[in-house]
């Protein structure tokens, strides 16, 4: 709840300092800054140990490319978590759309790439709509519903894919090139992720619809009484999460070149982890998609940095786990401090 209550307070603060100073102050107080510093720290330390981590063409490309797909999924996840739900099915949605992508290229030779992209996004959105409808109308907790669809979607994938595997030779060269291609040394996948991220961040911060997600996440009952269309918002959140996972699935196929029925297994945990590390409170109502995106970058960059720093394979997951627990503890401490401050300031104004 820390950042959501913080943001309006800062905006309403008396205009005594210049916008730049206020902006700077806000930047240092923001939850995301800590994570961003952590990312930079990881990059700097690793680069000192091994300069090719940043200063080689592959190193630079991978630094930007590796987190790009997870950023998309984490942005969708953040929107859902902000509305006090969770979408555990994203890994399975990603796997299904990745397989669909391969199948489209095999079954419809010469299909335009844009159609495949649209099909992936729409299909992902539909799977998200199923989640959203079950959560909003059946009034069953999102964690239970999406845990169910996690298995159901994966099951459909196993039945559909069966013994088939999409191999690199099944997909057009142009499409595969997209997965690793660069524009002005920035990978195309990173550009796609950035565009989505900026659009989502702008929507969540500046539009009425975006703020309604926060209102619903803070207190669904109050939001309903206030007249917000809670069901519609929930549906939109899940469709967004599904559509982004769908887009991620198409990009997954382009980048990794092989898709089997297990593609994307475990991504839901990475996505939730990224959001939580990035300061999106799991109880809803606070956090930003920026935070989730930076969390995704931190998660995957640490994964790549640890082997280079000489940390044995077996310890790498433990480090990621410690990171998630640390983020949640920090979130709790900040929330407590914030509510104490709010109480104090209320006492003063009385």
């Amino acid at each position, binding site marked *: 709840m820390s950042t959501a209550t913080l943001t309006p307070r800062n905006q309403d603060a008396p205009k005594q300092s210049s916008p730049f100073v206020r902006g700077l102050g806000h930047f240092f107080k923001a939850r995301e800054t800590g994570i961003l510093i952590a990312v930079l720290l990881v990059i700097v330390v690793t680069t000192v140990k091994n300069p090719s981590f940043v200063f080689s063409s592959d190193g630079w490309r991978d630094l930007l490319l590796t987190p790009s797909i997870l950023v998309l999924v984490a942005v969708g996840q953040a929107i859902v978590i902000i509305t006090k739900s*969770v979408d555990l099915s994203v890994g399975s949605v990603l796997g299904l759309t990745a397989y669909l992508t391969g199948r489209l290229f095999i079954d419809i030779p010469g299909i335009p790439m844009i159609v495949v992209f649209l099909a992936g996004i729409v299909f992902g959105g539909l799977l998200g709509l199923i989640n959203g409808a079950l959560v909003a109308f059946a009034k*069953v907790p*999102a964690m239970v519903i999406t845990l169910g669809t996690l298995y159901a979607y994966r099951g459909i994938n196993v039945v559909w894919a069966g013994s088939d595997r999409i191999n690199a030779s099944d997909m057009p060269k142009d499409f595969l090139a997209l997965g690793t291609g660069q524009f002005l040394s920035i990978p195309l996948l990173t550009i796609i992720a950035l565009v989505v991220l900026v659009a989502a961040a702008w929507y969540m911060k500046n539009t009425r619809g975006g703020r309604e997600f926060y209102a619903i996440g803070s207190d669904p009952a109050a939001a309903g009484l206030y007249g917000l269309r809670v069901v519609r918002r929930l549906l939109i959140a899940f469709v967004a999460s599904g559509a982004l996972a769908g887009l991620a699935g198409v990009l997954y196929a382009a980048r990794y070149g*092989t898709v089997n029925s*297990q593609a994307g297994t475990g991504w839901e945990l990475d996505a939730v982890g990224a959001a939580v590390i990035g300061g999106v409170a799991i109880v809803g109502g606070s956090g930003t998609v920026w935070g989730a995106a930076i969390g995704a970058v931190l998660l995957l960059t640490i994964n*790549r940095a640890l*082997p280079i720093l000489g940390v044995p*394979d*077996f310890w790498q997951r433990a480090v990621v786990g410690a990171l998630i627990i640390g983020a949640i503890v920090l979130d709790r401490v900040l929330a407590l401090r914030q509510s104490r401050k709010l109480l104090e300031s209320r006492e003063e104004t009385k």
Partner: protein
Amino acid sequence: MLFHNLGKGKTARAGAVAALAVSIALLATGCASDSTGGGSTDAAGGDTGNLAVTFIPKNLGNPYFDTSDKGGKTAVESFSGTFQEVGPAEASPDAQVSYINTATTQGVGALVVAANDPTAICDALNEARDTGIKVVTFDSDTDPECRDLFINQADAEGIAKVQIDEIAKQIGESGEVAILSATANATNQNAWIEQMKTYAASEYPNITIVDTVYGDDDDQTSFDKTAALLQSHPNLKGIVSPTTVGIAAAARYLQTSEYKGKVALTGLGTPNQMRDYVEDGTVTSFALWNPEDLGYLSAMAAKALIEGTITGAEGDSFEAGDLGSFKVGADQTVLLGDPFVFDKSNIGDFDF
């Protein structure tokens, strides 16, 4: 919050539904074991006429096991048995236990298992054997006391030799080589890696194996581990990946990286996966046995065990249809044969 309370009425109804589902499941399994002749009443001796063979691969949806199970099915159908394939969606250590238990209750004649973990499924397998079910492991073994027979796709020595020979040929017999494996606790992988190190040290003294990393048989993890390998070892000349998922992911990374053509890659892969990379020169050659033959031989061995032709003792021999005659070696193990090397010249002849 994430959980809401259900109404009282709903809880009661859910309980009733669950109870009903459990009773149906119990009835169904009861009937199943009756109809197949009930291995459970026939302890230790086994039923020589019960040719129901259940394949439990590491996970479903894995093309390698789909191919081996296809071979198993062909064999089972050739001796008019009943073929069944069940297994978990994910290859985690104890995921196979429930499938083994179900097969035990059904009273099948034999279980053919590719173990995800050498010990985690041991108790379940031994319970099955106590009811007279024959247990054959293939691809990845359990501890020897938990099974009757292990069908080895190729001995560790042969596999290690072919991969080290191939990589040595490609990098000019000297330089740094790294290994990209599957999971850290995969029995077969670890045995091969151990042998590869020994063989390389004795035959190619100028080759150093600098690192072993684990891609968990996951495309994305293997892909990222390949990137990390190339970065942390700037003098790396070759990568050996003794796993089909690993080699394809590593090839995909190399294909578009600055290391293409500079860092050699070989290992165990399937022709369909590797076709693209072999044709564009990212990969020169790789090795594998025929998984279909492996499944076929496993099913044939299961039949020989059920019928009592062999007991699994060293020196026992049995006929395996099209594959000819096989002999049980030390540690109740049967060897399929030497691995096969695929390259640009012959990859077109294969489709699996």
